[in-house]
C-alpha cells in the first residue's frame, strides 16, 4: 500500500512523514514520530487519553487519520511546557496530586488547556462537563477539578 506524504506542524515545529491511509494520528504520533505522551486507552474515542489539539480544536487522536493532519497546527503534551517552565496546569496537577498512575494525565492536561482557552473562569460544573470526555480511574476526579480551578486562578492573575 502506498504511503501518504504529510506535512504538518506539531508543537510549532514543521514535521513531515509518510503514513498509511488507514493509520490514525495517534499511531503516527506514537509509532512514527516517537511522541508517546498521547496514550491509547481504548482506540474508540471513549477515554480521552490520546487527546491532542488540532487547529484549536480538542480531538481524540485515535479518531483522526494521520493523513488528515496535512497543513494543520497540532499541539500535544510534549509541547505544553516551555523548556523548564511548566504550564500552570502541569504545576497545579503536581501540587494537588491530581494524578496517581498518571496515564490519563496528558489527556487531561490537553483537555483542560483547551477548556481554559475557551472559558478562563469555569465553574466546578463547567470543569466537570468540560473534562467528561476524559476517563480517570484512580483519583475520583476531586483533585483534578481542584487543580484546574487553581490553575485557572493563576492564569487569570498572570
Amino acid at each position: 500500500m502506498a504511503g501518504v506524504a504529510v506535512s504538518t506542524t506539531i508543537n510549532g515545529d514543521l514535521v513531515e512523514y509518510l503514513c498509511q491511509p488507514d493509520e490514525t494520528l495517534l499511531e503516527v504520533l506514537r509509532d512514527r514520530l516517537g511522541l508517546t505522551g498521547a496514550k491509547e486507552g481504548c482506540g474508540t474515542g471513549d477515554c480521552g487519553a490520546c487527546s491532542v489539539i488540532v487547529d484549536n480544536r480538542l480531538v481524540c487522536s485515535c479518531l483522526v487519520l494521520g493523513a488528515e493532519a496535512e497543513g494543520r497546527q497540532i499541539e500535544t503534551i510534549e509541547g505544553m511546557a516551555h523548556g523548564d517552565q511548566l504550564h500552570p496546569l502541569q504545576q497545579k496537577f503536581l501540587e494537588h496530586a491530581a494524578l496517581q498512575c498518571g496515564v490519563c494525565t496528558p489527556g487531561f492536561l490537553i483537555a483542560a488547556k483547551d477548556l481554559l482557552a475557551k472559558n478562563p473562569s469555569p465553574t466546578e460544573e463547567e470543569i466537570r462537563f468540560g473534562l467528561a470526555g476524559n476517563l480517570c480511574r484512580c483519583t475520583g476526579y476531586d483533585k483534578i477539578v481542584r487543580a484546574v480551578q487553581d490553575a485557572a486562578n493563576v492564569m487569570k492573575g498572570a
Partner: protein
Amino acid sequence: MNFDPRFSGRNFTSVGTRPIRPDGVDKVTGRARYGADFNMAGQLVGRILRSPHAHAVIRKIDTSKAEKLAGVKAVITAADLPDLTDGDTAMYDILDNSMARKKALYDGHAVAAVAAIDARTARQALKLIEVEYEVLPHVTDVDEAMKHSAPLINDAIFTEGLEEKPVKPSNVCKRTQYGHGDVHQGFAEADMIVERSFKTEQTHQGYIEPHACVASVNADGTADLWVCTQGHFVYRQHCAQLLGLEVSKLRVTSSEIGGGFGGKTHVWAEPVALALSRKAGRPVKLVMTREEVFRASGPTSATSIDVKIGAKKDGTITAAEATLRYTCGPYAGMWAEIGAMTAFACYRLENVKTVGYEVLVNRPKTAAYRAPSAPMAAFAVESAVDELAKEIGMDPVEFRIKNAAQEGTRASYGPVYGPIGIGPTLEAVKNHPHMKAPLKANQGRGMACGFWFNFGGQTCTDLNIGMDGSVSLAVGTVDVGGSRASLSLVAAEELGIAYEHVKAVVADTSSLGYNDMTDGSRGTFSSSMATISAARNAIKVLRERAAQMWDIPVDDVAWEKGHAVAKGATHGNLAPLSLKEIAAQSGKTGGPIAGHSELVADGAGVSFATHICDIEVDPETGATRVIRYTVVQDAGKAVHPTYVEGQYQGGAAQGIGWALNEEYIYGKDGRLQNPGFLDYRIPVCSDLPMIDTQILEIPNPNHPYGVRGVGETSIVPPLAAIANAVSNAVGVRMTHIPMSPPRILAALEAEREG
C-alpha cells in the same frame, strides 16, 4: 541485622508532609514511559487470536496460511507453550489461560498468536488462522452454574471442602466455612431477624492502560521483558516457569503502570509474547486492545449472597450467617473464601457462620480487584444490618457502634484484633457535618462500614548514599499511585535529611532481591518498613565512618537530625558531622556507604472505613445522582496525606461506578456484549461530586511509624452505602448491584404491584 519493627511514638519532620512526587514532572510532560511506550530495535508486533465461543473444544488449528503471509515471522499455538508446570495446578491454569490447550473456556480465550513486521500484517495473519471448534453448552450465571443440570466446565474438578468426597465432578470447586459460636442458638435468642438474598454483577478494574509488554528472548537463553505490572518479580517467576527459563536469566523491568487495582497481579499475554519472541528470534511488542482487556483479562466475581442476622430489641446482634457464591471464571479461585472471611469482620459477634462456594463459569478468569471479594460481601451484610437497625428502631450508626468490633474482639475469620479503627470511624461519622446536611425530595442518605486485611510480604530495599550526600532508594514494589514519594519521605525522616535529597526508583528484577507484588495495600506499608530498616543499617555505617574520621569509639557516636554527634565529655570539642560531610570522605574511610534490607513485612494492621453518601433518584427514569460523599478511614499513619486522600477518593469512585452502573453483560450466546468504555461506562468527571475525606490515625503496633495499608478498604463500603442511600430515597430495599436505572424502575414497579 536485627530490626525492631514495633511502633514507637515520635515527632515527624518529613512524614506527614505533602511534597511533589519525584516522578511527577515526567508524568505531566508525557515523558513517563508506560507499558506501550517502550520499543526495541527489530521489534515485531504481536497479536492474539481469541475464541468467539464461550465454551468449545478446539478440534484443530491450521496456521499454514498465516505462516505463508509475507511479513509474518512467527505463529504459535498452545503447542509452542509446552506444559512445564509439573503438577502445579495454579500455574497450569495460568498457562491454559494464556493460551487455550484443549478447550476454549470463555469468549475471548486466546487460541493462537502471531508476530509480524507491523500491526496490519499481524491482523491479516489472524484472519488466515483456521480453528475448528466443537461448540459446547455454556453457563455464565453463578446460580445456574451451581445446578446439577449445568454444563460442566472441567470434569476433573470435584468439590473440595465437603465432608464426603463427591462422586461426580462439579462447577463448585470448593466450599469453605468460617465462624464461631452457635448460630442456631443465637437466632433463637433474637427478637428480630432479617434474612435477604443479594446479587452483584461482574465488574472490571477498568485501568486506563491496557496490558502491554515488549519481550525479547535471546539465543543464549537470556531474556528481557519490559511490562506494565503490579509485580515484576512475580511476572519473572511465572514467565520463567512457563517458558522453561532460568529465573536469573530473565530480567523483568516494570514500566510506569497506568492503573492495575489487582488486574495486573499475574501474567496474561506475557508468556505469549515471550513464546513469540523465542520462535521469531526477535523482540515482540504485544499490546492488548481495550476489547481484549474486557474480554480476556481478569474482572472481579459476580456473586449471589444470602444473609441472615438476628438481634435483640436493645440492638445486640445475637447471630449472623451468610452463604456466599462467587464466580471464579473457568479456573479454581478463593474468591468466595475471602468474601466469607471479610463479611462480618466489622462486628463483635458471639455466633457467626459464613460459607463460601467457588463457582466455575464460562467467563474470564477472575482476578483481584481492590480488596477483592470484600465489597460484595459488605454490600449484602451492610444492607441487612441497615434493615435490621430500622426494624429495631435504632439509628443505623448507633446500631453499628453498639456491635462494632474492638481491640480484643475475636474476628469472624479467626484472629483476635489489636487496636483497630472501626469504632473511631463510626464515631467520626456520627459527628460529621455530612450527617446533618439537609436532604431534598427523592434524596436518601446511606452509610456503611468496610474492612480489609492488608498484607505485608517479602520486601527488599537498597539505600545508597552518593558522595554528594544525596540518597538513591531502590525499591521493588511497583509504584501504583505515589509510593516513591511516600518512601522518599520515610528515607528522609529516618536519615534526618531533606526529602529533596532522596530519589526513589523501582529497580528491575536483576538489580534487587525478590519482592512480592504491590497488592494487599502493601506498597507503602512493606517498603517503608524495609526502607526504615535499610536507613538504620546505613546510619550504622555512617556512625562507623564518623567514628573513624574522629578516631573515637563508634559507641560514642550517635545519629541525630542528619548528623553524627560525638557523645561524652571527652569529645565535647567535636562539631557534628553531616551526612554530606561523611559521604564526601567515604572513598577514604571504607568505600561506598549503603544500607540494605531484606525482610518479610509481617503485621500489616487491619483497616476499617465508614462511608456516608447522599443519592438522588429520579423516580420517573430510575436515574441516580451522587449528591454528597464522605470517606472516613484509619490510615495508621498517613505518610503522604494527599496521596492517602487520593486512595480514599479513588476507591470510593470505583465503588460508585460498581454500585450504580458498571456490569459485564453477556448475551445468550455467552459473548460479552459491552467490551468497551462506551457501553461499560465507568464514572466520568460530571458524574461525581467532590469526595470528602477524613483520615484517622490509629497506629499499627507492628510498624515503626504506625503505618497501615490504605489502598483497598475505600472500595469496600460504597456498594452498601449507596444501596442504603438509594433504598432510603425510594423506600424499597435494593438487592441487586448495579442499581442501574432499569433495575431501580423494576424494583419500584414490583413494590407498586405489591
